[in-house]
């Protein structure tokens, strides 16, 4: 499949509430170096990776998923990592071909690749475009060099912005990521940085508060008292600044950490948050597929070489495919769906969980101004967003 025709950044299709689309996630588990904050399934390899062998394994896994979930039309594909921008263009093309051989791919399918904004990687953007990728998501992370260095990044701010410009020239759509609430960052400094960033953003931005993930290098520093994170008040102030600046520039949060002009949302990620179906292939990829006997939660082997061997031996890399209980499905729908500004459909919750949400809890949270009911939907309010975890745990209890 070599789609080279321009695809319009069309508005999110108004789907029936129960049909969130069908996405395919491809995990590329390698990086040039490991960032100290990162707990993604990423590995650094000294010798070159045998990409052809991986392509074959991806093909095998994709076929395995297609057997479980045939008769779907792919509405989005996402190459995530790790660092997919380390892949050869031909590798990306071969994987896209494999997908198209198994399922029909919608003509307006969104095909995103996560890229690190170094000059080397920007040099491959044309190949990706030729292979069919129509959207990139760049890990810019910060716009000042000292912070980039502390985050362990291999690129400078200037190099990252250059990569953003290349992306803008080549792809119909692009987005980039920033990490805020960095050690010692003030609300004022973040406001200035965000204003600058937004001037380089066309339609989409992901803005993540730094999370200290267990097992990372930052976690060790944190526990040794050598790294401080903002207290609750500063974290809230940084959140408020983020919303204020983005709202003013017409890029409100459609998800907790994701901002877009209306219609420019990441359709692939919407599949997750709308609790749709997705196939995940590659080391450490997750999937949710509705098979003959219910919704399955699937996960694969994390270690790349072990995954490879298992796929070659067994025809798939799965370490588990758990059939989700109604309660588990209801819970997953809540934790994913309430992250969206559009919220959830309580009737769908009831259908998944086999019981409705407690009216008294909805009422209490609505009275506190944290939830609002709108037609058939129930959504978090701007006041509720920053305390979403507590709201969900109240609602689910």
């Amino acid at each position: 499949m070599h789609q080279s025709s321009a695809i319009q950044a069309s508005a999110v299709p108004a789907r029936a509430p129960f049909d969130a689309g069908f996405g395919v996630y491809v995990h590329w588990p390698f990086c040039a170096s490991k960032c100290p904050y990162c707990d993604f399934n990423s590995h650094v390899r000294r010798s070159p990776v045998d990409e052809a062998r991986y392509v074959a394994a991806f093909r095998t896994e994709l076929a395995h998923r297609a057997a479980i979930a045939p008769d779907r039309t792919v509405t989005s594909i996402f190459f995530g990592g790790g660092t997919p921008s380390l892949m050869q263009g031909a590798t990306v093309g071969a994987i896209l071909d494999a997908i198209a051989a198994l399922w029909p791919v919608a003509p307006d399918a969104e095909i995103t690749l996560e890229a690190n904004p170094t000059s080397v990687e920007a040099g491959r953007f044309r190949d990706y475009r030729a292979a069919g990728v129509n959207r990139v998501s760049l890990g810019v992370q910060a716009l000042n060099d000292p912070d980039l260095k502390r985050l362990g990044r291999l690129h400078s701010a200037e190099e990252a912005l250059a990569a953003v410009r290349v992306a803008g020239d080549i792809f119909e759509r692009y987005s980039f990521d920033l990490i805020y609430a960095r050690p010692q960052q003030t609300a004022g400094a973040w406001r200035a940085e965000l204003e600058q960033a937004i001037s380089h953003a066309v339609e989409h931005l992901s803005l993540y508060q730094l999370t200290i993930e267990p097992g990372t290098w930052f976690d060790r520093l944190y526990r040794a008292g050598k790294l401080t994170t903002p207290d609750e008040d500063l974290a809230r102030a940084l959140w408020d600044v983020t919303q204020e600046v983005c709202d003013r520039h017409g890029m409100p949060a459609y998800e907790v950490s994701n901002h877009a002009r209306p219609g420019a949302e990441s359709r692939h990620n919407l599949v997750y948050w709308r609790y749709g179906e997705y196939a995940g292939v590659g080391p450490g990829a997750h999937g949710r597929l509705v098979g003959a006997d219910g919704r399955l939660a699937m996960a694969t082997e994390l270690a790349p070489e072990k995954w490879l061997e298992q796929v070659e031996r067994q025809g798939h890399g799965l370490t588990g495919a758990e059939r989700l209980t109604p309660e588990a499905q209801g819970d997953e729908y809540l934790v994913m769906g309430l992250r969206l500004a559009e919220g959830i459909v309580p009737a769908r919750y009831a259908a998944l969980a086999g019981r409705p949400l407690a009216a008294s809890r909805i009422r209490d949270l609505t009275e506190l101004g944290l939830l609002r009911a709108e037609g058939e939907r129930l959504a978090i309010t701007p006041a509720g967003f920053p305390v979403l975890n507590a709201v969900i745990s109240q609602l689910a209890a």
Partner: protein
Amino acid sequence: MATHPFDNIRNFSIVAHIDHGKSTLADRLIQETGTVAARDMGEQMLDSMDIEKERGITIKAQTVRLEYRAQDGRDYILNLMDTPGHVDFAYEVSRSLAACEGSILVVDASQGVEAQTLANVYQALDANHEIVPVLNKIDLPAAEPERVKEQIEDVIGIDASEAIPVSAKTGLGIPDVLEAIVKRLPPPKGDETAPLKAMLVDSWYDSYLGVVVLVRIIDGVLKKGMTIRMMGSGANYGVDKVGVFRPKMTDVAQLGPGEVGFFTGSIKEVADTRVGDTITEERRLTAEALPGFKPAQPVVFCGLFPVDAADFENLRAAMGKLRLNDASFSYEMETSAALGFGFRCGFLGLLHLEIIQERLEREFNLDLISTAPSVVYKLNMADGTQIELHNPADMPDVMKISSIEEPWIRATIMTPDDYLGAIIKLCQDRRGEQVDLNYVGKRAMVVYDLPLNEVVFDFYDRLKSVSKGYASFDYAISGYRQGDLVKMSLLVNAEPVDALAMLVHRTRAEMRGRAMCEKLRELIPQHLFQIPIQAAIGGKIIARETIRALRKDVTAKCYGGDASRKRKLLDKQKEGKKRMRQFGKVEIPQEAFIAALKMDE
């Protein structure tokens, strides 16, 4: 035939301060004597309850029979009793001591003599035990065996010249301990032809065997098929099974004088065994009963309620079974406006309370909520009657009360001179009245009268911390005295929480109220709204704190791979919520009801 020694038997307890290595030493003795095959050895083998393994402490005294061929070429039977170190379980220690002739005193050579070293060794001396001091943990670089030897002589006043240096961890010195047990501890004495006389040391409920009774035989023999009589209750029972612990239950043909073992039989009821009772043969009664043990005195009371009201009968049954396992706690039914039907229970101390609650929840699969611990007050009513108040929530209208009396204790505290000042201040702060102060060698002995309600919550903890663990503490109830006591209520989000109500002395009310509000502010998690916490006497607010509303907790990243992770987190939160009690719109963690009372002055 008259009483004579049974030369091949030695019965001994292992006593020490908490964590000095009693249970680990027991492991080594079990291993060295080949009682358990090396591949079946675990750690702290005798700590058999989950809760003991997790907390790394011994709660129940345990016994095991070892067979040992000594250097003199003879075979010996050694009955070992491992005992708990924590002061709340001193009662367990006293029973074990009564069943033995000697004690191994374990002292951690890197720490030296500590509070419960003293308390336990004095108990052993009171029981006329021969004592073998053992200096443990000499593998540690910080071990100072010579200094600790001196300390044992100075502070305890026993000869430590032959104290045995060991490492229970590496096994160093263990053969010397076994030889010392044989050579230095006396054998038991008894008369096997006399009528059966045995001491009921402990008893518990086993789901397969029913009631299991641990006995120490004084005279005569105990055999399967006999009919025995409990002298205290006068009831008779058939004996089905007689055995010993090695450490698994192993049947034997009979138990003779000096031996320690168990029997099971037709005993059905919780109430049928009384620890300390004398067991004899129905057909041939012994002339004289043993003195028995003085009953354990519960000093802390609190209400225990099932979270789910439907569990009340299960809770009642569980209490019955646990009580058989632990004679030192008591319970009676009570009802609370907020918490429904439950039981008011008496405990030896706060750790004891915590552990009983945890065992009820775990072993009987119950979810419980506990109220603030309290003592028993006597209310003299205006109409001339007197009522006992076990639960502050039941306090009648103050207009109907003419006076309130509270229990007092006489406390004896021994401490190195250095900490005397801090200890006196602690006692004064707790409304104490000094009765006596003098010196025993380098140690000061101070006697105080104290109101029990100032002691139950956290006095041990405070004493331990101001004396770095070196003070030892003993007390007895001395009677009731009138006091200027008032009921203090705690309001959370403007609603009174009856389980947190307490009686306090008027002069202490404001300080306590402030401390409780501060504690609750830390213990109650942030909610989605602001929560005022107030302490009040009558309608008057005497202290106030506010828990701020939660401001930021949302997880930044959540993609396809995070659905499972987030769901599992939610499951955990749901579990956590089960341990919370809903008061109005506020969820209070169950631990808060007890923790709120511990003050860090």
